[in-house]
């Protein structure tokens, strides 16, 4: 029988749960735990410069690997600083375990130093949370937390640990449970066969079908199955912002991202379809536009592991609750058994129509005659420079949409962005989390001069741990997406959407010990990219690229319209 202190049990249990890195920041309530961390080497700790970044690093790691990211912060401000990061992970269904210190249990409720009600604060943005009440429960709680975070529809789980649960001189028997038992938590293991059969029948009868795949496909690790289904049926496929990479971005059957800034053809395909197969997507308001006008002629099949996602915003005809991969397997098996095939003639004429829509080239943009670049061409250049194979994280705003539109992701887990919550400051720490776990891969953070300043302090962490991410800052000197809306809806009144007194980013990153390259003219970009991935490959490089501040993101859906109602440029509407 092995006797361990609470702090030691926590660290050991994390190790047994498969944790290699913890992203965190120490403080009073966690000192016993940090002492336990010091005395071992199996679990490595990364010291961030702000706790929000710890959560985003863990999140980036989780999105790239599919495994839960782990955050450790002290009570009070340490805990509250993670809230944005937890909410970001929650909205995008990302597995994460957050360990927050707490004041001594006998002080809870007394407004003690650095006390906050972390369970209360985080309750609406966690999948579940635990408070440790007996030190000997720690291993079981950790095992449960990882189980809950990573199964079903994944999400963040908080474990709040009062300091007196980790006392170094109080030792208990350590037992890590072999199997986690939770009588009230049983995520679905397979879809309903009858419903799957109905769905396949509907797909085989479809004349204008579309497959609309979201982040759930990537989370379930079922991109290969999606590809097989799309290719077998010869149906067009569109991806949500979260689903990019689940179907190859350069694939012939890919019609692009859909929704507010989706491609013309994707939105047209959706609007005119007669059967929509939605897979691991949640009919977000940034996808559907006005729900009353959404896909007026379509029968909708919806596969999702979370029953509450089904018929939440859009009523569906064939709901299937289950894991994406399992349901797709069953669909393929039914297609194999069936004597029927899709209506080849109808599908051919559907493709003819889709190709006509593609001819409109709604994603074209005009390059400036001057040397001032358009943001789109910078993204295209980075796509070429990285051979389309980088892990790309982004912040939030115009640069995010340009990256989603112009970087063609052929693999899943490569596009890492805060899709649901829209968290500025996410991209850089997320890139760090990815790079630490994939040191040989190219990791690029596409950001703007607004977003990057929300977590720029992490340049220091990158120096400490040698994390050579590449930061591509599309610098237009203003909060581009806010400015775009002000141009379109507020007669160009740029209320607080410009950035005065920007720092000299080059000198700033140099002060942090990294490489900065400023690009103000088109001709400078090729050399800058060559240096970034060539002679500075093992350094953090900050590319500060000046881009046209007048540029807008198009297409853009017209508010309260149907999916086909779009602005295609400043002057052109569907």
């Amino acid at each position, binding site marked *: 029988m092995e006797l361990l202190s609470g702090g030691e049990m926590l660290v050991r249990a994390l190790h047994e749960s498969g944790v290699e890195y913890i992203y965190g920041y120490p403080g009073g309530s966690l000192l016993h735990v940090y002492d336990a961390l010091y005395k071992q080497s199996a679990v490595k700790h990364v010291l961030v410069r702000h706790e929000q970044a710890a959560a985003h690093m863990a999140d980036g790691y989780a999105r790239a690997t599919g495994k839960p990211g782990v955050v450790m912060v002290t009570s009070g401000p340490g805990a509250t600083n993670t809230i944005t990061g937890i909410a970001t992970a929650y909205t995008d269904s990302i597995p994460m375990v957050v360990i927050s210190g707490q004041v001594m249990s006998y002080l809870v409720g007394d407004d003690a130093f650095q006390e906050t009600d972390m369970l209360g604060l985080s309750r609406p943005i966690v999948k579940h949370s635990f408070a440790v009440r007996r030190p000997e429960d720690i291993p079981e709680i950790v095992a449960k937390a990882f189980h809950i975070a990573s199964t079903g529809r994944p999400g963040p789980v908080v474990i709040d640990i009062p300091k007196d649960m980790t006392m170094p001189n109080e030792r208990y028997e350590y037992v890590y449970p072999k199997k986690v038992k939770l009588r009230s938590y049983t995520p679905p293991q397979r879809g309903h066969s009858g419903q799957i059969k109905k769905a396949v029948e509907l797909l085989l009868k479809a004349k204008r079908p579309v497959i609309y795949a979201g982040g759930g496909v990537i989370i379930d690790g079922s991109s290969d199955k999606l590809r097989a289904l799309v290719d077998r049926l010869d149906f067009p496929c569109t991806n949500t912002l979260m689903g990019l990479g689940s179907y190859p971005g350069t694939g012939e059957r890919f019609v692009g991202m859909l929704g507010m800034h989706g491609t013309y053809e994707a939105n047209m395909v959706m609007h005119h379809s007669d059967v929509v197969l939605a897979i691991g997507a949640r009919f977000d308001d940034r996808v559907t536009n006005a729900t009353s006008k959404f896909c007026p002629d379509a029968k909708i099949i919806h596969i999702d592991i979370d029953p509450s996602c089904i*018929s939440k915003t859009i*009523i569906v005809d064939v709901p299937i609750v289950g894991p994406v991969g399992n349901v797709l397997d069953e669909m393929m098996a039914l297609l194999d058994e069936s004597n029927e095939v899709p209506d080849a003639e109808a599908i051919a004429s559907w493709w003819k129509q889709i190709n006509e829509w593609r001819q409109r080239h709604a994603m074209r943009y005009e390059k400036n005659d001057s040397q001032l670049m358009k943001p789109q061409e910078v993204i295209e250049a980075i796509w070429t420079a990285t051979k389309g194979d980088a892990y790309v994280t982004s912040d939030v705003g115009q640069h995010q949409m340009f990256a989603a539109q112009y970087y063609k992701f052929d693999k899943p887990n490569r596009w890492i962005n805060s899709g649901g919550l829209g968290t500025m400051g996410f991209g850089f720490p997320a890139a760090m989390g990815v790079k630490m776990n994939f040191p040989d891969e190219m990791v690029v953070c596409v950001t703007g001069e607004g977003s990057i300043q929300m977590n720029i302090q992490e340049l220091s962490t990158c120096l400490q741990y040698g994390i050579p991410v590449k930061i591509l800052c599309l610098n237009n000197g203003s909060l581009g997406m806010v400015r775009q809306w002000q141009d379109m809806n507020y007669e160009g009144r740029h209320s607080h959407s410009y950035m005065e007194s920007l720092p000299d980013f080059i000198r700033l990153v140099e002060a942090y010990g990294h490489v900065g390259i400023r690009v103000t003219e088109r001709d400078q970009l090729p050399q800058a990219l060559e240096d970034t991935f060539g002679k500075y490959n093992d350094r953090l490089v900050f590319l500060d690229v000046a881009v046209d501040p007048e540029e807008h993101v198009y297409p853009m859906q017209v508010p309260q319209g149907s999916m086909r109602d779009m602005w295609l440029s400043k002057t052109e509407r569907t």
Partner: protein
Amino acid sequence: MRHIISILLENEPGALSRVVGLFAQRGYNIETLTVAPTEDKTLSRLTMTTTGDDRKIEQITKQLNKLIEVVKLVDLSEGPHIERELMLIKVKAVGAQRAEIKRTADIFRGQIVDVSASVYTIQLTGTSDKLEAFIEAIGAGCVLETVRTGVSGISRGEKILSL
């Protein structure tokens, strides 16, 4: 429409706040709420009444089911069921009113559980409608204080809500 949602909940600290928080967070309305441990001390039974169209109630039940501590859930109003609410009500009772209030309480099968020179405290059990009918019958003007437990409910017949 009014629904009675009955939940078996893990009897743990914080479980109730998750249920209540969910309603606040998603803009659902709780009309009544009552909760107490069951014969199995690890479980609480929680009954709440809420209103909404079918779609809203479906979302409410799905969201509640997602809470880890919610072990089982049933919408009692979907089938035959018994519902009861208990009310303690203090009324002004002086002069001729005293006899009249006593008679009304008898008609409603209420009991006078405390008496003072000018006040009756009456205990009444029944559906929410019945409790309201009683208040109407004695006249809101003589009511000094009311306290209601909120609705408790159980299915009729063989159907049970248990593990």
